């Protein structure tokens, strides 16, 4: 594990970070809760899969004896993962593009007062309400998530809007860590200028709003909210100490091109490092990494034996003749990436508790847009949860745990909330779920 002194931290990060030098950051006191709590969540989002090829092939009770080819790479971290499947969404016949995955709601499920907020956004909002106000509320990364008419349907904003990911690794890096301080100016001077500029821009947006109808005003409201998030980032303090290091500055997008577009898999590898460092520097507590969208992911994965093809159209819908051999390979690749992130997090100490790694204090959730991507349904949603061994949220087993549940899949999303110390779920998920059904799935938390 990399452990850096305060001096090293300042040397490696301070010169490049143009955040205000102020101020006390509210630190969350560890709750005296029965469940162990995480400090951050990382959602790993991909398409649905072929259930019969995902399920471990040897299971005794909850013990995984034999992993499927798809999930075999997870065995490297088996002591830290819990596989869950069998859980229907609220709309089991929903398929592509349904936002059930992270919101608990889908195409046909809208009632009065229902807001389609994804769990990451719900958690981000709750953190702010609890006084945990990091420079970036939620970091949504993922390349090529808008291709071919697909959208980032995973993430629903706190007010119901669909949120895009940042696809460009360089743009993500600059957004998280800031660019280099220009020569001839100081951080304070630059901050003052930025604030002046933002004041000017906000005034312009407000002026424009004045003569517009509701719909057009909404566009500027979204813009102003984005500016508020920027102002929050500019005004937030950096943590002291810890193992905060920036990853290497990514190259321009032009260096990540393949077949005329951004290489999604390659870009997402860089995004993994950005997320890990963003956690290490406590720039955010909520991060999501998305592979493709609900319709498409062009896969260029050298070394895997996979052809350049679209995950959905190629591996999923055209894979029967080979018993989905390419889908299995790609799912194994994704599992490898999931493990890679775990290893990255293990390599950083928690910025507030040097006795723990980031992985110990992070809950990872691998979620999908559908259960069965081949049959286009959500009758059995599946997840992979992961947390560290030193006080991690999950109840784990040495050989890995497998749980099959017929409870609504939203309950796992509530586990994510519970892991972050959130016990009130009002405003999230299916309002029709009440009582026990509106609680985290038992036997998940340690």
């Amino acid at each position, binding site marked *: 594990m990399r452990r850096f002194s305060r001096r090293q931290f300042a040397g490696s990060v301070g010169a490049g970070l143009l955040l205000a030098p102020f101020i006390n950051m509210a630190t969350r006191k560890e709750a005296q809760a029965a469940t162990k709590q995480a400090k951050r969540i990382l959602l790993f989002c991909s398409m649905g899969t072929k259930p019969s090829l995902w399920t471990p092939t040897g299971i005794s009770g909850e013990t995984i004896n034999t992993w499927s080819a798809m999930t075999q790479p997870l065995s490297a971290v088996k002591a830290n993962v819990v596989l869950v499947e069998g859980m229907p969404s609220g709309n089991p016949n929903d398929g592509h593009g349904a936002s059930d995955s992270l919101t608990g709601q889908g195409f046909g499920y809208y009632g009065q007062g229902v807001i389609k907020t994804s769990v990451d956004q719900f958690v981000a909002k709750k953190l702010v309400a609890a006084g945990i106000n990091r420079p970036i509320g939620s970091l949504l990364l993922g390349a090529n998530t808008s291709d071919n008419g697909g959208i980032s349907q995973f993430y629903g904003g706190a007010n119901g809007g669909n949120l895009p990911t940042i696809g460009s690794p360089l743009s993500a890096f600059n957004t998280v860590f800031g660019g280099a301080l220009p020569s001839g100016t100081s951080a304070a001077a630059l901050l003052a200028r930025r604030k002046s500029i933002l004041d000017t821009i906000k005034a312009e947006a407000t002026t424009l709003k004045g003569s517009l109808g509701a719909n057009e005003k909404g566009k500027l409201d*979204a813009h102003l909210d984005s500016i508020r998030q920027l102002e929050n980032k500019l005004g937030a303090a950096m943590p002291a100490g810890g193992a905060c290091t920036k990853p290497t500055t990514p190259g321009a997008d032009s260096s990540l091109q393949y077949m005329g577009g951004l290489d999604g898999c390659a870009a997402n590898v860089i995004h993994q490092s950005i997320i890990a460092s963003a956690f290490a520097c406590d720039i955010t507590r909520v991060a999501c990494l998305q592979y493709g969208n609900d319709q498409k992911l062009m896969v260029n994965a050298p070394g895997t034996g996979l052809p350049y093809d679209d995950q959905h159209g190629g591996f999923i819908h055209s894979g029967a003749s080979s018993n989905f051999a390419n889908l299995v390979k790609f799912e194994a690749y994704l599992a490898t990436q999931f493990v890679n992130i775990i290893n990255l997090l293990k390599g950083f100490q928690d910025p507030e508790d040097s006795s723990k790694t980031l992985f110990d204090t992070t809950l990872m959730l691998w979620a999908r847009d559908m259960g069965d991507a081949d049959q286009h349904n959500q009758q059995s949603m599946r997840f992979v949860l992961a947390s560290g061994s030193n006080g991690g949220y999950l109840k784990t087993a040495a050989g890995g745990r497998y749980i099959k549940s017929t409870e609504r899949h939203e309950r796992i999303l509530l586990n994510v909330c519970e892991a972050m110390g959130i016990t009130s779920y009002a405003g999230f998920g299916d309002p029709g779920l009440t009582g026990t059904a509106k609680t985290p799935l038992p036997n998940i938390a340690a």
Partner: protein
Amino acid sequence: MQRPCLVAVAAILSAAGCAGYGSAIPGDVGSAGNSGTAGNGPGTAGTTGSAGNGNTGTAGDTGAGNGSGTGNGSGTGTAGDSGAAGSSATGTGGSGPTVTPPKQALTPANKCTSNVPGPRKLWRLSGPEFAASIRTIFNDTANAAPIATVFNDPTNLGFAIDANALLVQELNASQLQDNAEAIAAWAASANKLQMFGNCSTLDSTCGTKFVQAFGRRAFRTTLAASDTRVAAYLKLFMAGSSYSDGAQAVISAMLQSPYFIYRTEMGTQSGGTFTLTPFEVATEIAYLLTGTSPDDTLLAAADNVAAGSLTLSSMVDQQAMRLLSTSSASNATALMGFMTGWLGLDRLYTTAHDDTVFTMSKSVRDDMAQETQSLLLEAFNNSGSLSSALTADHTFLNSELASFYGLPTTGLTTAFKSVSLAGSTVRDPGLLANGSILNGYARPDTSSPTQRGHMVRSRMLCQDVNPPPPNVDTTFHPSTMPETTRQHFENVHSKNACYTCHEYMDWIGFGFEAYDGWGRHRTTDNGLPVNSSVTVYSDPQGKDVSLAGLTGSNSLASYLGASDDVKRCMLRYWSYYAYGASSWAQDGCTYDSIYQEASSNSFGLKASLMAIIHAKNFTQRVMDQ
């Protein structure tokens, strides 16, 4: 209602169930429409009713999907109550109206009762427009400016241009700031500052010149000295430590300004309508025809209109014709920006093919793209129509592409030239036989009658088809017996409920069976004779009669070239591309006027584009809701 599978219309073939096909997501958030049928094919979805905005609308039977609204509160959708205003919390979504999600299908035109134009709007620059505009501002012909990738926009109906989908949200403001600062620093280091104001002192006179000069290009308008924005930006300038520092501050600020980021189409009110300002119209012309901000000639023309020495309509005609002159290099932008999205031409590069069956080089793909562009541009520049391109007796080839097609290469070089294919038995002429289309609508290892037929049905005829119903096995099962691709698709899709949808697609797509998945001509498939007979069954809504007796892409092209449905469909999609909105109250007024003018000019491609520019909606609007 499910969102159908956008992918692989052709990649999905089942021995027991229906093949899936592509479609866009129906919208959600708020009420979706009535029983529209979800569409298929790239970018089209079911005919759903207006998505309500406000987060309390109820989704309809179909068309639920994801919207891109932010904030909550009352909206103008057809359903959905006003949601409670959210609380504004630092770093998360605040309160405010929600933006109506884009329509996911071309809904029927709204009846015209009083010849009104569409509503005013703000239209954020698309990602390509954003980058192009920055290059235009600085005359950066070398593409040296370090422009960041800021926006990650969804495609809708085949295009990433919907004014309700292009938002600035979440971390975009941070990305815009980073980009603006990097551009400003580059401009200083690249000696670009002198382009604006031609002075170099840190004083109010120079500062005002700089603000006005840079602002003219960035905001696409003339900033009078009395404009309050001049004073605001002068203040930023004067806070600089030097001329360069002040200038960089102005550049950084203006490139983050809503006046740069958005195209305003708001106008000045006169009675019940708003007449767009000369600069707003100049901006429309520029982005539609050149994909970037107005050049100096266009801005000067707008100045003349503002001064009263030129009428708005004269400016529109003069400048449009200037930019669309036959030799204009921007004609490719004007035409292909639309055609690429409408016909899905970029699928040439994104549709995966099985290299173990056949490997096609990127160079050949580039050749195919050039072939199609040349054919369409020829029609455009010579007053031809879509039919001209469909029924051309020639195509455009270079030696490499001719060789790939199995055609003689005599007299051909690396340059493209028109090659007659009249009477050819090796290849059909015309657009439908272009490799760009044949490759883009194919399975990885074979042709795809479903994909190709679906493209024709949904994109060219604007006749949507239902997606596969839930829980139907859409797995592709390869053939297990000696049969052609056509026979395989016929055998599977004639069964059960599959036929009810696939008849509308596959039986058109069979007309392309003389070409494999890579666009290579064939007379046999799996050793058996190819059958490319076509039946165009009446549209899913049953308005037309079925048509049989066509064979091959040539006769299909003749049918489509003569089809009024295709003409109207093209104009409808082109209107969407031009106006950034697929539907508004009484939009039928606009579509009717465009159709009438295009018809009077034999639906020439350039004339069709001019008809869109001449429509009242291009220069006038009503109050937005």
